[in-house]
């Protein structure tokens, strides 16, 4: 997954924020069982994140959203075929929501302090690690939060229509970290 150019960035001591568009699709399967989960895992070459609030990383990053619902960090086109093959015989639906979301990368030693201002989520590395994800209200809007392997970085996914609000919130929130 190549990094696209940032649409907007913010830097403050101990903190860097970048806004990007990310390829994204939501896969929904009605009442998936172990067989279809296994088939999906095989199709994508990873252990499919069947457990709530988990993330799997392979060629495509996949996050659990709800029972029978996953976010694939890929547009529908490249994953449509493997998904259709693995889900053969199951009612499923893949919608490309690339244009519907924005991805915010927040990194630096201050990233947790920043998140704590907008979300009630506990992001301490002992309780929120790489391989997990969470959905929470952040800056009063729904967000998917994924901690990065590096420890001090997080990816946030929010609805594209709130991008203007989230950007304004970040600018204001980073004010107290200014040198």
């Amino acid at each position: 997954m190549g990094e696209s150019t940032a649409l907007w960035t913010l830097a403050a001591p101990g903190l860097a924020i970048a806004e990007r568009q990310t390829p994204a699709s939501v896969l929904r399967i009605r009442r998936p069982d172990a067989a279809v989960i296994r088939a999906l895992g095989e199709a994508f070459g990873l252990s499919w994140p069947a457990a709530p609030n988990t993330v799997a990383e392979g060629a495509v990053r996949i996050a659990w959203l709800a029972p029978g619902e996953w976010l694939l960090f890929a547009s529908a086109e490249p994953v449509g075929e493997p998904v259709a093959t693995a889900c053969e015989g199951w009612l499923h639906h893949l919608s490309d929501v690339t244009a519907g979301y924005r991805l915010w990368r927040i990194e630096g030693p201050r990233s947790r302090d920043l998140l704590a201002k907008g979300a009630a989520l506990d992001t301490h590395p002992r309780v929120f690690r790489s391989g997990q994800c969470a959905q929470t209200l952040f800056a009063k809007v729904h967000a998917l939060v994924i901690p990065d392997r590096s420890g001090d970085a997080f990816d946030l996914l929010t609805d594209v229509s709130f991008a203007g609000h989230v950007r304004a919130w970040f600018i204001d929130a980073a004010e107290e970290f200014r040198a």
Partner: protein
Amino acid sequence: MSGRRLPGGGRIDRNRPLNFTFEGRPYRGYVGDTLASALLAAGVRVVGRSFKYHRPRGLLAAGVEEANALVQVGEGARAEVNLRATEVELHEGLTARAVNCWPSARFDVGAVNNLFGRLLPAGFYYKTFMWPDWRWFEPVIRRAAGLGRPSILPDPDRYETRHAHCDLLVVGSGPAGLAAALAASRRGERVMLVEQDPLPGGSLLWRPAQIDGRSGSDWAERAAAEIAAAPDALVLTRTTAIGYFDHNALALLERVAGAAGSPGPDHRPRQRLWSVRARRVVLAAGALERPLVFPGNDRPGVMLASAVSEYAARWAARAGDEAVVFTNNDSAYAAAHALLDTGGRVAAVVDSRPAPPARRTASLQARGVRTLLGASIVATHGRPALTGVTIRDAEGHDHRVAADVLAMSGGWNPTVHLFSQSGGALVWDGEQALFRPGRSAQAEVSVGAAAGEFGLSTAIEQGWRAGGGEGAPPLADAADERWTIGPLWRVPARGKAFVDFQNDVTADDIALSARENFVSVEHLKRYTTLGMAADQGKTSNVNALAIMAELTGRPIADVGTTRFRPPFTPATFGAIGGRARGELFQPLRRLPAHDRHVQAGAAFEEYGGWLRPAHYPGAGESAHAAEQREALAVRRAVGLFDGSPLGKIDVVGADAAEFLDRIYANTLSTLKVGRARYGLMLNEQGAVIDDGVTVRLAADHFLVGTTGGGADRIAAWLEEWLQCEWPDLDVLVAPVTTAWAVLTLSGPKARDVLDAAGVDMAIGEEDFPHMTFRECRVAGVPARISRVSFTGEVSFEVSVAADRACELWDRLRLAGAPFGLAPVGIEAWMLLRMEMGYLHLGADTDGATTPDDIGWGRVLKRRRDFVGRRSLTRPELLRKDRLQFVGVEAVDSTVPVPVGSHLRSPGLPSGSEGYVTSSGLSPTLGRGVALAMVRAGRSRYGEELLVITGEGRGRRVRVTVPGVRGPGGEPLDG
């Protein structure tokens, strides 16, 4: 001269003097002083006036419980009212004045109330001023009451709120709290230690103690430093735990260091409100000393004994030269020693107990201090401040003794406020005469003085264990001494004896309350206002209920306490609001082509959570003119409208059609692939909750359209029915609203514009008729087009991926320019649908509107069941005189009738028969058009009604079918 600064000692920096003003007079203090300690050291005795009687008041305490010294700090926009002088850290240039007095604390006009005190007993405003009308007196009394004058200017400061999580939250950094936090941090736990003072240490900052071979304050400093250095620990000073809620959630108010009161813009917040979730909580909040209740106990110079000691030890400020001590327990003896140690004189120690522990009295007698046992103080003298007291000895003889400070102690109250807020039950400890924590309701433990354990070793031991400490706790060098008390709840003598200093409630007021049978503590509180001041009765509650117990002959435990409520100390609204103000107050959604609308000069307004163009006024054009011009463009040429917020939900599966038949009030299963149909959704009560156009993409695939404001709500509504009621249906629901942008071309030239922009299919009327749907490319952009119309003109609703909205906008505007295309805002769009008589859900309907009310009764008379169907047969919904959706036209002029105007038949004397729901000036007709809900409206077409409210009052309107262009409100085909 009374109070004075001692030549040495104290935790103040004598090399860093600070200038400040109090009541307009300049004073000096030092870094480390509070406003209270600096005033005491400067010999200021009167620091405020009491709330009701405007009696002169001096410092009562040295900490958070201070009831008298309420001050206003700062000027203008930064003025902050009702701060306790004991908690205001001194800084250079600080300006402060007393609240509730005019023109000054020393000379206050309102003191006349004191002379008429007989007329102002408890509850006086319920009784005295009821005739002829309370409202005559209210403004005067309200002005005389009240504490401080808050600024009405916008607050220039920043405030933050944030969340935090920890394994252990320790409230209070005295010896017990420090031991708990130290133990837990050594175990590697996530620890938060909260201290309201700028310095950690609690009582160790002023009480002589030795721990692990160091002075108490030295040990505290090192312990706090060790905790702060632990990787997962956080020490927050200047931070008060103000609320304890369910699930171990606590609110902390942090006064951010350095930012408080400093002038000029600063990027640091002034205060920060923490919302903490803790696995375990240790409450080590210490204890507060109780005053004694005797006549004249509020005269400036009468102080809590512990405050006398604390001012001397911590701030090198001696409260007076000539002291009398009045106590019913052992702890006040320390104050006598503190005064003697700092060069003061102690004229007498008055102990109400006939036989206090001999070693206490002996230690003072050895220093030449007279001790009177079984005695009490029955009067104080001096104006405005204390010059002497009258002591009544055990034999009943009165002696007048000169004194400029009276140190009193009525015992101690563990600070159980947070414990009580957490839901824990208090128990009465008769031996120590105090309420202490009993059964806990949450994962919480109280330790040290907060648990009624006053020995230093015991406090440290308890804290250490509560923090999970293994091995030996830090060691206090002296063994704990037994502490004794012989309760004296009030001195039986004539004169105003204050119980609640801040709300001016006396022992007599409590007696009055008892006489009038307000004997429950809850009634006592409300009748006398006891404990209802800003200090929430920190020094008064237990005295009051003990007096009530005496008066009613009940045990104190049976009288009980009122419930302690958050906040422990007052919190600013700024901190509660945090950064959620201005544009961050409410998150608003922006359209995919937001920037293009800005470029087109849009005036934005909020509609259903979206920031949308209301209209696009040209240079010098009014909002009204823009709206009229835009609407005309649609009627005569073509308009371009951004309808992106329209909800879009994919519904797929073999049972999709069945599912939608149950959800919608009308039938969707008969819809052919590629066709569109308008639908109504009802709730179980039969009320209309949403409407929209649904298209069928395939036999097992529908795209459901909802109102802009209903997108999230309806998606959740569909999921709820699927998951909870019909899990057997083979259906998936996928909301995709914001992934798609919707740009609508509408007007007689719409087809020409679409053609000019380039579309890869035939769009003639026969090829692509009204209420059909196609997937295609517009100007090279993959698109879905619906042929639906909300304006009555030929319309093409073009949906593209949201990130291609700007591109499509540009292409359509370019292609439309030769045809006179105009961007159209919501206001014109509403006008156009109003002309057509099309319903706008939420504007023309409310939460009780049924399908029949809006003319859909006939359509729904079918066999199959759907959500809300059974409710439609309730008698109330079948009434013939329900409000029904109609058009109204003005009879008397072309001016539109205001929205909200109520209507009534001229023949009726009173009441309303309906109201106008939508109204505007039709640019095509040059007169007002309006829609309304009118009783039995559909049977009253042609009838004239009177406007009975608002600006249009007295005007006449005629009831019509909705809309002025289409027959019966049916959509026009294009």
